[in-house]
């Protein structure tokens, strides 16, 4: 069986990739996809831990996280759409009406 550390390491790596994506990508949709990647990295971690410890809790959480991610997708795309309608751009740099 594959040692749990591999899963955890992969999870951490995916999480880091997602984080970097949020930080450097300019397209809001891609930023949002990076966030989803982070959530799924955590999901992987949960599954791996749950399986390693023989507890179902890990999998239960993943169901909930998936739901939350889905809802966030729905809401997030809606908000990005609203922002796009107002500003005709999805470039993260250009949203700076509110500052200071």
């Amino acid at each position, binding site marked *: 069986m594959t040692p749990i550390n*591999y899963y955890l*390491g992969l999870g951490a790596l995916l999480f880091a990739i997602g984080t970097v994506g949020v930080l450097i990508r300019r397209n809001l949709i891609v930023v949002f996809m990076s966030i989803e990647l982070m959530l799924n990295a955590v999901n992987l971690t949960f599954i791996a831990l749950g399986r390693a410890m023989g507890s179902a809790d890990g999998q239960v959480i993943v169901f909930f996280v*998936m739901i939350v991610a*889905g*809802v966030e997708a729905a809401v997030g*795309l*809606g908000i990005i*759409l609203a922002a796009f309608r107002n500003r005709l751009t999805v470039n993260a740099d250009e949203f700076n009406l509110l500052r200071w």
Partner: protein
Amino acid sequence: MTTWFPVALMTAFAALVVGLMVTINAIVGPRSRDPVKGEAFECGNPPSGSAWRRFSVHFYLTAILFLVFDVEVVFLYPWAVTIRQLGATGLVEAGIFIVLMLAGLIYALRRGMLDWS
């Protein structure tokens, strides 16, 4: 540390293979740069318009609805597996869950989300 050794080996190997293939391709591959070559392939027809098109928002709304009802199953499936152990309580709870989803569906209908006219 030894547990990580295969990973490192794997990574190095993958990098090596990919690097090799890309490099060889770049060196030996023939190249012809003309506009036709750069065009998108649309089954032989000359491509028209931009690939960046906006879709009707209805596609998107439907996708969201699909997402919601798709994910619903995630909760119903484990319940179905343990339906006997959970008994009446489980039945009531699943019922509440389904009724709530139904309320969401009614709301979506009233807001005209499935109205394509």
